[in-house]
């Protein structure tokens, strides 16, 4: 399976409060709250680190969860947020210039 690279869109508003992250799309005003695990993936979505590495290096280590389960949850999370343009997904590393609002 091809590697996934994820990056936060710039067309969002976001703030972490009390371990959770509020994210709102500036494009369609969809509002999400991310729990601690999702917030960890969100924070690590730098466009350069493969999703599988975020799962093993961050999620599994910080939340004591098995890799397979964590990967499935991460894939669902990425799919949901990418549908709203909140996360950008690519099979190649995403350089900063790709993180435009549109």
């Amino acid at each position: 399976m091809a590697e996934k690279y994820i990056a936060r869109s710039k067309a969002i508003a976001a703030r972490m409060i009390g371990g959770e992250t509020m994210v709102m799309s500036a494009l369609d005003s969809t509002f999400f709250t991310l729990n601690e695990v999702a917030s960890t993936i969100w924070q690590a979505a730098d466009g350069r680190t493969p999703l599988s590495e975020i799962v093993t290096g961050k999620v599994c280590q910080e939340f004591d969860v098995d890799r397979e389960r964590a990967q499935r949850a991460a894939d669902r999370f990425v799919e949901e947020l990418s549908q709203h343009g909140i996360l950008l997904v690519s099979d190649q590393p995403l350089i900063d210039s790709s993180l435009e609002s549109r």
Partner: protein
Amino acid sequence: MSLIAEMSQKALKLGLPISVHLDITYRCNERCVHCYLDHDDHGEMTTAEIIDVLAQLADAGVFFLSISGGEVLMRRDFFDIVERARQLLFNVKVKTNGVMIREKEAARLRQLGVEQIQISVYSHRPEVHDAITKLPGSLKKTLRAIRFLKSQGLKVSIANVLMAGNFSDQAGVIALAKELGVHYTLDPTITPKMDGDRSILALQIPGSELKQVFNNAELVGNVEEFCAPPPAPDEDVMDGYPCSAGHTACYISPYGDVFPCVQFPLPSGNVRRQKFLDIWHHSTQLKEVRSIRARDLPTCSTCAHVGTCTRCPGLAYMEGSMRGPSTADCEKSFQRTGIPSANMLKRARTDSAGPLIQIQLPMNSAQDGPFPVETGSPEALVGISAHA
């Protein structure tokens, strides 16, 4: 409960300021008859100062940022401020009259990812709108701006402040909003001037017209539900706090002054002299605002409307006490339900008992001129009766 409401609750528990209203100028190109501001520059924060405040607000956890004025575009650095705010990932709402927004400005706002633009429209008729703004041609320019903003796909909201002079145009503005494809919000509240001058309150719509607003299903949804008598308050209501002012929200003036809300001019600190979080956590004024619960309100805690009233502690403060009633909201509760507020009943009792202090002049001295002439003993000249 919506996700946003849940996060607001969480912010309340954590003592975080989730929402800030930042006025970047009081200067304006309009001179609206009901405006509570002066329009001079008494030493606005510089670009660097505002950018520093934005960074502090982001660190403090602020998510919702309203950038307002005055007219925000009177500042040449307006887009620099918005750009920095967006880089810091605030959810930005801009309040403007739109007069200076053309295609280029609309495109820039879109590019920056501003979430919403709120524009004041007072009437669908230029002669009425322009008479309120005192700027000839302003409605035409404002509507042009709305069309530019809409063509960029931005979310636009029309704010319609209702006054006696434009009340009859309300339906016209609603129709205009529909035609433009923008959200419509109505505000029947006139705020006293920040210097305490209450003369502009004379512009308020009378109660009977307020009742019409509350019975308009297009505005309130289910009228029967909206105008239903208030339920008996329970313990949760009595332990509740009046509004978000000072709890999860605050206001910062162009001069760096921090207040609980734009409508609550209780000076609580200044970001030019103190760090924002120091003010937020340690201001004695904000602490006092936060300490007040519904049960602490001498009159309102006894009122049938205590759990459903829109009582504004800022308006109450401007009337004399942040723990007192806000008579504009008493009127709203009354017109909505037909049930007088405790404050109205108290005032009616006082009024029917006669004036608290009465000074009577002998007929002859009143006829002689504006000042009483001593014709006998002081007791005979001036009678004072007082009610405890």
